[in-house]
């Protein structure tokens, strides 16, 4: 391959560097993104990767917006489509899909709850709430306000209280996570003193943020439900461990902005006074204040942190990186770009779909993950966005994509029903052992119960993937990692290896029924890797099937597995 395949940007950017400074408000965000990224590439004399081919783009955008790879049919149709606007149309269609809402719910659940075990609000309730929010394109600031203002009493918004309740309303944990997740600052090391290494993270920021939640705790209602209650709090005292005798005070504070707390006459602070039996409710709620002031224009850190997170979700790396280390010694890789992204996010009323649409429309997103020919990858840091950054599939993406690739939904249902009937048999056997048990004889389970039991069993299979491929509870998901137990799981586990052998019209069965090895190769690559094979790959499949013709279903299964277990499948590239 020649050097010309490398997309040299220098020439193109001479013009666009000038227009960056103009920054007309009517320039679509996707173009603005490209101007900034390309300007920096030109400045640093870096070559960018070529535009991604249709197949590469399609797989990526499906994974990023719907959490799964496209099915073979869908993939074939897109690749054949000669419409020049097909990428744009696909993006619009995916953003409108139900899968988008479900995928965003999963992403934001993992982001906000970090795989903590359920405490008071169940994951299905919470995910439904998030999916409805993202499906309806609820403005992101409104969603965050609902979460930060939640008390768990109002039935409709109860799931939003999961953020507080399932952290047991533990103050220090909340301060840290509100800072990290919504403001992009990890203040943990500022709890006992000014941050030793980061000048911007002051001791008073930690305690100022803590005032908002210091008065809140759980309350058990008579119906057994846990909700939030709040006692009056105006300020906290704190002292540095280096100067323990010097006491400081702060009121509620969002970083350097101190908030006013209205004076309330003594004795009139409460709607419901604190007592053992009643949920205490102050007239002035600091949690409500937090929910109004944090996700708003008054706190510019919010839009920056959110824009940076959404960017990182798609681009594999934050403009500020790590994502919760916004401070002056860790500058953004593209400062003006981050400004523009944050401004556009907030001026669009935190329209997440519009934001993701613009991002995925940009040439920067639609670059290939192939390093330009003749270029040393070391010279193209992840922060340059010169080449598409590869991301590991999340546990959920991996589960759903394996299922789509193997076309094994029917097999999975079969696995689930077998497990359920086994349990039922065991249950019946146990009941038979205790003939005098007062329980009525097993009733026919109603349809709703069966649906719920199946849902739970499916969730348990996904949970297997989460344990194997996800982060530990309470930790953010890290970069791609590969381990021995994971490889053993993908190679041998009942779940995965059950989907591979020819069964119930799954992929292997379909392929086994085809006569021509080229057809098999095409269908196989399209189904698993969402692309057509090249000639070498067709030959490889042909030779393999030739050698394994004694037992064709097995030979097909082996090659199906080899692609499912390939890095190309495991990564979003």
């Amino acid at each position, binding site marked *: 391959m020649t050097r010309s395949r490398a997309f040299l940007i220098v020439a193109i950017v001479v013009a666009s560097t000038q227009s960056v400074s103009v920054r007309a408000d009517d320039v679509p965000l996707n173009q603005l993104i490209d101007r900034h990224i390309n300007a920096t590439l030109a400045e640093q004399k870096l070559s960018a990767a070529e535009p991604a081919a249709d197949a590469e783009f399609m797989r990526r955008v499906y994974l990023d917006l719907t959490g799964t790879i496209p099915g073979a049919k869908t993939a074939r149709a897109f690749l054949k489509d000669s419409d020049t606007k097909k990428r744009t149309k696909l993006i619009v269609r995916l953003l409108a899909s139900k899968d988008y809402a479900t995928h965003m719910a999963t992403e934001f659940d993992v982001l906000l709850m970090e795989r903590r075990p359920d405490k008071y609000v169940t994951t299905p309730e919470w995910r439904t709430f998030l999916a409805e929010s993202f499906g309806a394109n609820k403005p992101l600031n409104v969603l965050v306000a609902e979460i930060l203002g939640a008390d768990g009493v109002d039935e409709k918004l109860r799931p939003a209280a999961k953020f507080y309740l399932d952290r047991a309303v533990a103050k*220090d944990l909340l301060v840290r996570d509100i800072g990290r997740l919504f403001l992009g600052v*990890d203040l*943990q*090391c500022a709890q*006992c*003193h000014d941050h*030793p*290494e980061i000048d911007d993270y002051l001791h008073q920021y930690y305690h100022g943020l803590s005032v908002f939640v*210091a008065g809140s705790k759980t309350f058990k209602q008579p119906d057994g439900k846990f909700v939030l209650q709040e006692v009056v709090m105006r300020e*906290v*005292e*704190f002292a540095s*461990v*280096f100067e323990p005798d010097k006491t400081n005070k702060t009121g509620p504070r969002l970083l350097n902005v101190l908030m006013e707390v209205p004076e309330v006459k003594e004795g009139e602070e409460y709607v419901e006074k604190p007592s053992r039996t009643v949920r205490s409710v102050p007239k002035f709620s600091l949690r409500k204040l937090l929910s109004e002031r944090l996700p708003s224009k008054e706190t510019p850190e919010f839009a920056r942190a959110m824009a940076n997170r959404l960017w990182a979700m798609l681009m594999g790396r934050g403009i500020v*990186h*790590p994502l*919760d*280390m916004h401070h002056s010694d860790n500058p953004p890789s593209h400062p003006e770009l981050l400004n523009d992204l944050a401004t556009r996010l907030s001026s669009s009323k935190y329209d997440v779909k519009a934001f993701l649409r613009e991002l995925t429309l940009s040439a920067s997103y639609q670059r290939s*993950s*192939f*390093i330009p020919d003749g270029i040393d*990858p070391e010279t193209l840091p992840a922060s340059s966005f010169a*080449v598409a950054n*590869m991301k590991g599939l999340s546990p959920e993406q991996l589960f759903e994509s394996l299922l789509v690739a193997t076309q094994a939904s029917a097999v999975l249902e079969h696995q689930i029903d077998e497990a359920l009937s086994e349990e039922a048999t065991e249950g019946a056997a146990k009941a038979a052992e205790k003939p005098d048990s007062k329980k009525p004889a097993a009733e026919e389970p109603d349809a709703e119960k069966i649906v719920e039991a199946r849902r739970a069993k499916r969730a348990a299979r996904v949970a297997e993937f989460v*344990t*194997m491929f996800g982060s*530990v509870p309470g*930790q953010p998901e890290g*970069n*791609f*990692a*590969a*381990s*021995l*137990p*994971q490889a*053993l799981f993908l*190679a*041998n*586990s*009942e779940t995965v*290896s059950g989907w*591979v*052998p020819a069964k119930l019209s799954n992929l292997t069965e379909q392929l086994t029924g085809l006569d021509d090895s080229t057809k098999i190769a095409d269908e196989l690559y399209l189904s698993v890797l969402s692309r057509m094979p090249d000639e*070498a790959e067709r030959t490889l499949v042909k030779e*393999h099937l030739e050698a394994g013709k004694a037992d064709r279903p*097995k030979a097909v*299964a*082996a*090659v199906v*597995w*080899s*692609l499912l*277990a*390939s*890095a*190309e499948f*495991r*990564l979003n*590239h």
Partner: protein
Amino acid sequence: MKYDPACNSNAHLVSRRSMLGNMVAGAAGVGALGQLIHPLVAREIEAKNKQVLIFLLNGGLSQFESFDPKPNTDTGGPFRSIPTAVPGTHFCELMPYTAQIADKLAVVRSVYAERVPGSHGGAREYVVTGRPPQQGPYPWIGPVYSRLLAANEDLPGNIHITPSRWGPRQDAAFLGPRHASLVLSGGKPPLNVDRPDLFNEELDDTRYRLRQLADQRFSQRRRTAYTEAYQSSYDQAAQLIRQKELFDVTKESEKDQLRYGSHDMGRHCLLARRLLQKGVTCVKVTHNNYDSHMENFNFHLEQLGEFDQPFATLMQDLKESGQLDHTLVMLVTEFGRTPVIQPDNGRDHYQDSWSVVLGGCGIQTGGVLGATNDNGTEIANRPVHVGEMFHTYMQAVGLDPTATHLVGGNNVPIGAPERSAVKELLI
């Protein structure tokens, strides 16, 4: 206002998050990891072929009922002390077999740590990383040995035998999952080690070969850190599947199975011996149920009754086979138990003083270091911090705890830099 600090250090050597953030390929396998974490040249070379056997008594072993008995005092409890193979040194009577091999052990009776958040989990992490947990995550000691000592690429470097159901943990932190513990829950082989019915050995080789071909094509002209790590995980898997009998303790002689005992601890100790003999670098055996807030004496009677004999048998066997010369043995627990005996005969958690026992490679055995006062309420002589113990664990096998791991451009000291090894314990 009082607050419970989640961070009680004034010197963050490396911020956890910046470290994780910089860990471009913390995941990376052999190839890429080699570039990330630079080798500790000099001492590492002589350390090769050293092995480590770790016993983790989970829940908090009582020092009173084991290695630091205080009979006939207000805190001593009902048990007597017995003489050991080391004249003048007494153990609790619950450890008769271990007493007979006391000459192969070094007992430290004056270990302490500051209280850290996270109860058992936090304290355990302090012991096995040498760092307070809130500075972490730092790699546990097993992954550190796996990284710095493991010479045999065909075997997992770090195996954890545990009675409990224990899923995969990221105990290797920034060393990457290549070095994370391979867990044998209930002493059984690792999960998913049996190939599915569909694939016989020959077809198994074929599918792995096809997989590798696909990866080779994919990684041309792409960044390779991820693909190398991924390939390495399948190489390990393929090797492990072929070596399944490694985990099969029934392959040991019947006589040995009888000597070690038919209960879990006996089987697990024999399995540990088998793994060490086959060349696994670091083997950790967990024994549970020492958290005796109630009925401390009954619990210890029962647990040590299970632990004592197989432990002593294993030490004896390692001595006779000559393996003890190059195998460090550590017996650790997350903290000790309180001198005060609760009304329901319980002892609570105690981090002011407890006992740790070492043996084998690099250790000055046959003695006791440090002492507590007459009724064990405080350290009377030579306090030893858990961070110093961590340095000692490294130095005993010839590793330099003051050297560094290089992680994403940061030099991360292997042991806490404000600590150093306990010279009296080392040969």
